[in-house]
């Protein structure tokens, strides 16, 4: 746009975007195993396949390096067929050996499918190269229904670059590590000992199987050029991709307002800024499902939040529509209920049952009743604790999340209107916030939840380690409030059911079973309100149609994927 020198690019042009998941660090190695690594998912970092943003099924994928895959029922074996024409940017073909090496490297990093803990749910037991383009991964005895997802998410790196990182006897060591006894422990140690070596490995240049390959990087941006060997090169339109760095959302807003970005990932945007973005030529918004919700979580070990009536009373007092309007008008919808599930997928999971759940519509009268039921007393227009001591709702949020700050302000204002003394306290940063939250320092704080599509992930946020349930060596245990990060401090059993137990079962359950469990947990959650779900996020992305067309439509399952994947799927066309 203004003041910029004309882009020195060919007919395909430069595609400018932002990688929301990382801050660009020009000194980081070009290595996808490095959390800061200078590789960009979907552009020069490829996985076997790309997850669809399904409402309920985590195992739906678009093909990536894997052209297709088959799985036995119960996901005991996954057979992956690689693209016959997949090649690295140096011209070498992508083979099963590359995948095997990548899996080997993944073992050094740990992870759900590739863990040396033989007993862990969903761990792979064997990796077999069937032929140059076919590879089979066998799941261990302790099955998980996310195994396929984990296998297909494998990031593939070239064996001829990374292979040397795996010592000669690596696979034998891996086998040994699956056993028990001192020899196995030694083998385990040997594998985890490789972790750092793999992370810090810095190849001299990018070798990519994706549509692009890294050309240059500086602290402000990374420049990728088209990979001529990419299997679907014909689908890839831009000659170059520029990934801009950012340190705050307001920078993305600025880029968007100046019409510079061809697409941008989800970004919280104030209404007024949205107006300006939309008014920039070519800018458009794509909205889709985003499996995240913001909630207000209670520490039930603190009085009076141990009392469900108090929590319900608060739920009756908060006008979620108003909060959403103030905090996240463009990227949020007020939560209908507190099912623990994002509104969109809740419909899919619960169907009719959703309507039967109490929506906690704003109702001060009911709130008063609930408060009275909890023994709270109202004096001089202000609610107090049952013993007459003052009651102050201290709502904690991290200062860096501006929408949460605004939401919390709005909530406290509403509570103040109803005679409940409330105010917002921020924490300096998110890391600190999490630390203090986990240490049980807060009564009430904001919490991210409803992380779909895996039903386990959804409820793990409510009935996982934050609420005392943890999986140790495949066995579920519960710690009392205040111990081992249990800051929610809810009861272990509610009306005879153990929500942690049920949540854990979601991992292994068949789809039908899952549906039942989800139903139970949603109901319990909505009644017990360990959190009050405030708004469900809407995946609001931005595109600019003045240089390219063919964007995924609203609600597309591809929306949460990087633009590099859209290109692979043949979506982005030259205008």
């Amino acid at each position: 746009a203004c003041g910029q020198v004309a882009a020195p690019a060919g007919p395909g042009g430069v595609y400018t975007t932002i990688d929301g998941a990382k801050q660009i660090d020009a000194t980081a190695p070009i290595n996808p195993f490095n959390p800061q690594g200078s590789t960009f998912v979907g552009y020069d970092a490829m996985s076997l396949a790309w997850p669809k943003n399904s409402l309920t099924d985590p195992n739906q994928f678009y093909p990536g390096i894997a052209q297709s895959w088959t799985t036995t029922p119960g996901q005991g074996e996954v057979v992956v067929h690689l693209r016959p024409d997949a090649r690295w940017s140096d011209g070498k073909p992508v083979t099963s050996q590359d995948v095997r090496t990548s899996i080997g490297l993944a073992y050094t990093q740990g992870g759900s499918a590739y863990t040396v803990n033989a007993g862990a749910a969903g761990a792979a037991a064997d990796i077999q190269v069937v032929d140059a383009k076919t590879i089979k991964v066998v799941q261990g005895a302790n099955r998980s229904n996310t195994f396929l997802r984990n296998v297909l998410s494998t990031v593939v790196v070239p064996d001829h670059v990374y292979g040397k990182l795996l010592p000669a006897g690596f696979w034998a060591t891996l086998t040994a590590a699956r056993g028990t006894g001192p020899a196995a422990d030694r083998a385990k140690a040997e594998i985890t000992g490789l972790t750092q070596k793999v992370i810090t490995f810095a190849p001299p240049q990018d070798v990519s199987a994706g549509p692009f390959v890294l050309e240059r990087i500086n602290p402000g941006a990374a420049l990728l050029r088209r990979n001529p060997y990419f299997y679907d090169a014909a689908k890839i339109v831009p000659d170059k991709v520029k990934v801009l760095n950012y340190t705050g959302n307001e920078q993305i807003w600025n880029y968007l307002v100046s019409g510079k970005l061809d697409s941008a990932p989800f970004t919280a945007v104030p209404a007024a800024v949205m107006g300006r973005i939309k008014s920039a030529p070519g800018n458009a918004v794509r909205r889709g499902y985003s499996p995240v919700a913001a909630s207000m979580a209670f520490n039930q070990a603190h009085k009076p939040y141990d009392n469900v009536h108090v929590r319900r009373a608060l739920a009756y007092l908060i006008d979620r529509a108003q909060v959403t309007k103030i905090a996240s008008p463009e990227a949020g919808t007020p939560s209908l209920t507190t099912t623990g599930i994002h509104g969109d997928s809740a419909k899919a999971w619960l169907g009719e049952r959703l309507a039967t759940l109490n929506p906690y519509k704003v109702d001060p009268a009911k709130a008063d009743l609930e408060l009275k039921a909890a023994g709270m007393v109202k004096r001089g227009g202000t609610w107090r604790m049952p013993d007459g001591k003052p009651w102050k709702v201290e709502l904690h949020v991290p200062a860096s999340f501006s929408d949460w700050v605004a939401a919390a302000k709005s909530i406290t204002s509403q509570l103040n209107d109803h005679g409940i003394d409330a105010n917002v306290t921020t924490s300096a940063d998110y890391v600190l916030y999490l630390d203090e939250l986990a240490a049980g320092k807060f009564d009430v704080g904001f919490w991210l939840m409803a992380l779909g599509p895996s039903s386990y992930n959804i409820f793990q946020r409510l009935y996982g380690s934050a609420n005392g349930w943890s999986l140790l060596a495949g066995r579920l245990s519960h710690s009392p409030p205040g111990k081992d990060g249990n800051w929610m401090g809810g009861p272990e059993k509610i009306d005879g059911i153990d929500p942690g137990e049920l949540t854990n079962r979601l991992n292994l359950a068949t789809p039908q079973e899952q549906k039942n469990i989800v139903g139970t947990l949603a109901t319990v959650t909505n009644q017990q309100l360990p959190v009050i779900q405030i708004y469900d996020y809407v995946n609001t992305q931005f595109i600019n149609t003045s240089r390219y067309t063919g964007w995924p439509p609203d609600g597309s399952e591809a929306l949460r994927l990087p633009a590099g994947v859209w290109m692979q799927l043949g979506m982005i066309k030259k205008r």
Partner: protein
Amino acid sequence: MSVTVPQTELQPGLSGTRAALRRNFWRGVARVLRRKPSRMVGVAIVALFLLMAAFGPMLYPAHLPRDNNALYAPPSLAHPFGTDFEGTDVLALVVTGARYVILTGLVTAVITVAAGTLLGLLAGFHRGRWDTALMRLTDLQLTIPGLPLLLVLSTVWKFQGPLAMGLVLGLLGWGGIARAVRSQTLSLRERGFIEAARGLGLSTTHIIGRELLPSMAPYIAMNMLIAVTGAIYAQVGLFFLGVLPFDSNNWGVMLNLAVFGGGALTSAAALPYLLAPLLAILLLTLGIVLVVDAMDEIFNPRLREE
């Protein structure tokens, strides 16, 4: 031979009562201010902010009213600086937010000046080993980069409220004053009147409190004002960066919410929300600049008269 008393030196004089002195001082101050109208303006501005800090929150209900239908309303008669994200009057936010900011500034200034002056006086007056030790400490304080340290500290230490905030800012800021006061003390020490006081056997407290300090008063007062502004800016800046936890409204929080929450730099809607605290800071700066200009004359009896 008798002492000759020159007749002309005998003039009807005034009696040296304290009240008269004080009256003279204030009359002198008034005269200094009147000499340049800009100084009056400065005093008026500073007084306005002090009043705002003292009584501002009393002008409004404890919980500021909001208008759900006027989020980020543009400036109007009812809302001269518009409204914020919740529909609260921005002017009210500026007025009620002044207390936190100015209180911090004052606390910081008091600590900075008290610590700096005390240590500087001690070092300059006792020289020798005391001096060396204190000056090393001062060097250290001046060497440690302040803002970075504050950033780090803000995560370790919860600055709960303006007092704690002021304490920390004060502890990070006394070095400059200490060094300057020391060198002033060293030079004043050599002045005849300090030496005379020692020769007369006057106590150290008297010498420091009555002879040294008043001579440094303009300097200290000036530093105090500068420390106030410095603290206000540092604090507002930290809130703006979002590294300070907050639990109530103040200018820095407004800046932060306007820029990072409201997109004031990207769209004009939240601009008044951003500009109001910025204007408050500018105005306060102007006021203090103008007052500092008069400070030297106020404290110097020679410049005060006529």
